[in-house]
């Protein structure tokens, strides 16, 4: 069935939209950063899904296996995961500094404080 066959892609789209929505709609900066992370993770799933071959195994040189999944996207995503972790760490570090400077991590309250500045 076409729908079930594309099951992973539906997960990707749903995750992506959840992440995107959280980034836009949440006023809490920590939640925003996590939304961003969910958004990135959905792309990881997209890459892993596209490399999957039905019945394929890991690319090991052995006579018993003929069908392999494409290993390249996995490697790419390994890199992207590192980037994602770095982004999240930096984002959260910035939120800590923002809390020290403003005493809040709610976007509205920060904007209110900034509005009073020249």
């Amino acid at each position, binding site marked *: 069935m076409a729908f079930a066959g594309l099951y992973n892609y539906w997960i990707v789209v749903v995750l992506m939209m959840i992440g995107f929505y959280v980034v836009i709609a949440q006023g809490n900066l920590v939640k925003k950063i996590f939304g961003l992370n969910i958004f*990135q993770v959905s*792309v990881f799933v997209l890459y892993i899904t*596209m490399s999957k071959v039905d019945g394929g195994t890991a690319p090991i040189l052995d006579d018993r296996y003929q069908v392999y999944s494409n290993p390249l996207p996995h490697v790419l995503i390994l890199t992207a995961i590192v980037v994602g972790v770095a*982004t999240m760490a*930096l984002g959260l570090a*910035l939120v800590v500094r*923002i809390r020290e400077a403003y005493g809040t991590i709610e976007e509205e309250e920060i904007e209110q404080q900034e509005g009073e500045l020249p």
Partner: protein
Amino acid sequence: MISAHLPALQVVVPLLAAPVCLLLRNRHAAWLLAALVTWATFIIALGLLAQVADRGTISYAIGDWAPPWGIEYRVDLFGALVLVIVSGIGSLVMPFARINVEREIPAERIYLFYVMYLLCLTGLLGIAITGDAFNLFVFLEISSLSSYVLISLGHDRRALTAALRYLIMGTLGATFYVIGIGLLYMVTGTLNMADLAQRVPDLLHLRTVEAALAFLIVGISLKLALFPLHLWLPNAYAFAPTTVTIFLAATATKVSVYVIIRIIYTVYGGAPIFREGILNEALMGLGMLSMVAAGLVAIYQSNVKRLLAYSSVSQIGYMVLGLSFGSVIGLAAGIVHLFNHAIMKAALFMALGCATQQVRAVSFDDLAGLGRQMPVTMGALVVGALSLIGLPLTVGFVTKWYLIQAALQDGAWLAVIVILASGLFAVVYTWRIVEAAYFRPLPEDREEVREAPLGMLIPLVILAGACVVFGIGATWPMDLALAAAESLIGARP
């Protein structure tokens, strides 16, 4: 011998210098190393440009893995020009940074500043040199992550929120880019740009390839600060340390323009996608909106740094407009504006930085009467402002001349009007700075202000001089841009 490895050295030298800076832990030693490395990258970039002009496009296989399997570094005229712009601005910023950073960043964090600076430089150079679409994403993130840190070093607490906003928008943009590359990889099975360029133009009818283009363009437009995706830029530039503002304003958005041109003209083969979809109308419209809307907003700013930031958004519109014509002359105007805007905006922000060094210049009142007290700095500011307006004998005029020619060739009368109107906005907002500096009396309570230190003035004078020199005898950047545009468009069958 070593000249064959210049493409790798271009990126590896600053990349390795960054952790060494971290280990040095001494701000003077870190500055010296960062400066030497930055100047070395500039020499390497000039060497690459000479090689490309001499022998044509260079292809360098990293680790001897032949492309398209291995990562390829590919330097053509356009790439070499961008490398020269980025490393050249980086080199000019270094002497300025030594004095400016001492004042704006706490002493114990200065060596960390140079670590981030070198990483940012690495990322920007890497984007311009790599021939691999995914590798480009990695460099994009190296430069982005380090620039978020650089921006957050500003002493105003709003620098933190500006950096976080940029982080969120920038990450969304980069992730969109990755989605686009993923979709292209799904269809073509390759990540090498030259390889993609051979396959993608035949597959344009596929929905996946169209969707990939949309993701790529939107993602890069976020990094590029194309209206209406520019919201992160004004605060990020306004509250970052001055050195960072100069460097990012002159290089980061330019490199993003480079990426968008690469995607459209190299990977997607340029003309065909312009003929079918609405891409060129969309880019043209957004480019013109950037020019007008950001120009109008700039007029009403009270913070001078933010005014110049909005002016940057408006100038990015010029570049996008230039590339949206799809003609050699339009693309060449866009490319030459990369160069022109880099030097004029660097000169403007640097002049403002020199003023900030001596007085707390953030509003127009702080600038009052400075024209008499700091004649060199304000003189350079005026030269930069005239370039921004596009007066003859400055670099800004060269861009406008070719841009209007391209618009007339295309019969786009609206574009001609918008180009002229946005020049008028530039007159209004730069006049406000000039008026404050030259025609307002000195405030009563202002003590004696001296000219900025020589280490800051020399790079400033070089930049302002370049605005005029290339404006009068602007042959080589324009020739180079024309040749680069021809090779980008003409290589298609």
